[in-house]
């Protein structure tokens, strides 16, 4: 391992730094990136207002054991679980679909470097976006709940800051999941469908099975465990939820690495 590291350090020529700079410019020079981000921000804000406004009109729920104003507000992130995942998918499938991948690999022929740079840029951008969204959701949600007279939460309360912060992290992990799917599936339509199927259809189908194994899939993990402070039905312990999501990402990126290394471009 030490030899590997020193070899890499001694190597002249391009490396992850150049690849990351190029990947960042790729995202910045596509209008679709800006549109996706803008649509996500607006969609999340809108859904947050709708969800919390509806909750603020059902006072009967406020004093049951399950009332969780943090979780109500973060419910608006459901829109982002789809659009941020799509962003990850498109970073890969957009290149395969247009043939840009051949330009990219001509410039960065060591494929793990290219995949690593994509993961770093997608992960970094969506982490920042995810945190902004999570905190915005929380703020907007509490304001709407307060206006409706419902009990609210504050970041200082136990578990609230953790729920908000980890929700942002989770969104960027969903983008990495999408990136992995995009590299493996290559076709944009197929990759988007696969992502939507894995995140939305699979939990729906599994929820009909005994014991509801659907709760261990990414989006329910975010909704019911990561973004929850008060115990929710179908809740999975937070540590397990983080471990599972990390595992899903690792599997998706490992499959992507195997695919990009073994298959012709």
């Amino acid at each position, binding site marked *: 391992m030490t030899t590997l590291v020193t070899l890499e350090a001694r*190597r*002249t*020529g391009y490396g992850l730094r150049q690849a990351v700079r190029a990947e960042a410019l790729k995202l910045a020079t596509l209008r679709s990136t800006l549109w996706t981000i803008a649509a996500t921000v607006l969609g999340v804000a809108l859904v947050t207002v709708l969800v919390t406004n509806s909750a603020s009109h059902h006072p009967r729920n406020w004093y049951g054991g399950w009332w969780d104003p943090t979780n109500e507000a973060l419910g608006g992130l459901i829109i982002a679980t789809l659009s941020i995942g799509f962003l990850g998918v498109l970073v890969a499938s957009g290149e395969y679909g247009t043939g840009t991948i051949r330009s990219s690999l001509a*410039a*960065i022929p060591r494929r793990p470097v290219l995949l690593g740079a994509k993961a770093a840029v997608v992960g970094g951008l969506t982490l920042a976006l995810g945190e902004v969204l999570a905190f915005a959701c929380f703020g907007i949600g509490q304001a709407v709940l307060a206006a409706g007279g419902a009990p609210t939460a504050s970041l200082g309360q136990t578990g609230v800051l953790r729920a908000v912060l980890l929700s942002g992290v989770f969104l960027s992990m969903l983008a990495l999941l999408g990136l992995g799917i995009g590299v493996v599936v290559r076709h944009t339509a197929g990759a988007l469908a696969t992502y939507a199927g894995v995140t939305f259809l699979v939990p729906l189908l599994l929820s009909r099975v005994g014991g509801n194994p659907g709760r261990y899939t990414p989006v329910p993990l975010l909704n019911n465990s990561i973004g929850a402070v008060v115990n929710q039905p179908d809740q999975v312990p937070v540590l397990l939820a983080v471990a599972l999501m990390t595992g899903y990402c690792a599997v998706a990126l490992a499959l992507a690495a195997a695919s990009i290394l073994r298959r*012709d471009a």
Partner: protein
Amino acid sequence: MIVARSLTKHYQRTVAVRDLSFDVRPGVVTGFLGPNGSGKSTTMRMIMGLDVPTAGTALVHGRPYAELEWPLREVGALLDARAFHPGRSGRDHLRILARSNDIPLRRVDEVLDIVGLGSVAQQRAGRYSLGMGQRLGIAAALLGDPGVLLFDEPVNGLDPEGIRWVRHLLRSLAQEGRTVFVSSHLIAEMSLTAQRLVVIGRGTLIAETTVDEFVSRSATKFVRVVTPAAAEFADALRGTGATVRVDDDGAVLVDGLTSADVGRFAAHRDFTLFELTPVQASLEDAFMELTNAAVEFRAGEPAVAMATSSTTTKENA
């Protein structure tokens, strides 16, 4: 310098490239000639490390492409005209490539001017015509000022002025001492551009030679004679043992004699000649002759599968 050794590529049951070895030298334009589907693009993708060879190696500057330190500064390639995102401007496409290999930004505008895209550089590349896309691909190839250049069908989609421009560009790049490897199925174009040739058919090497040598090797070389007494002249020539045909338009075509021999013979026998022309085979004739049997998709013949093709191709090679 590009060196291919025993390059082989199988796709499921078909063989795209079989045991292909050749060298591409610096200082000259080397044409890569073969019918459609003969494995030219596959070979170029293997040189670029995009496709992994089933067997054999392709080396650039003595190394596999993936081990180059600054790939775009050592090798420039136009592999397909549309290897860019339609939503990005031509200039942004080049800026991204420049960043990936630490190429200074001013070089982006330089190559845009070289290929004549300066005025449309800010437009989305999806709006470019096929020819403009081709020029953007050429700009990307030139970006790192590389010593080795690969062009796959570079004149596709270009207008006559663009074709002349590419011809000049390729020659001047070679004159600067660079290695220039250009594939084409357009034989006439190759005869105007290339000095050396790598000719393949059905994925196997048919010839690796100079254009001149390739043409002169061809058997289709004859002397065309126009005379008012065609039939008598043909008969008289046949008496000397020459192979003679009479063309549809009445011209006598003589094989196996030089034009000097034919002229002296005519003078000696008092034949009046209106025309005496040595006819050199064109590169196209030579190519057709050599690849005739090696053409992948002849009418009525299905693409050949791996199991059956080994014997047929060996015969042709």
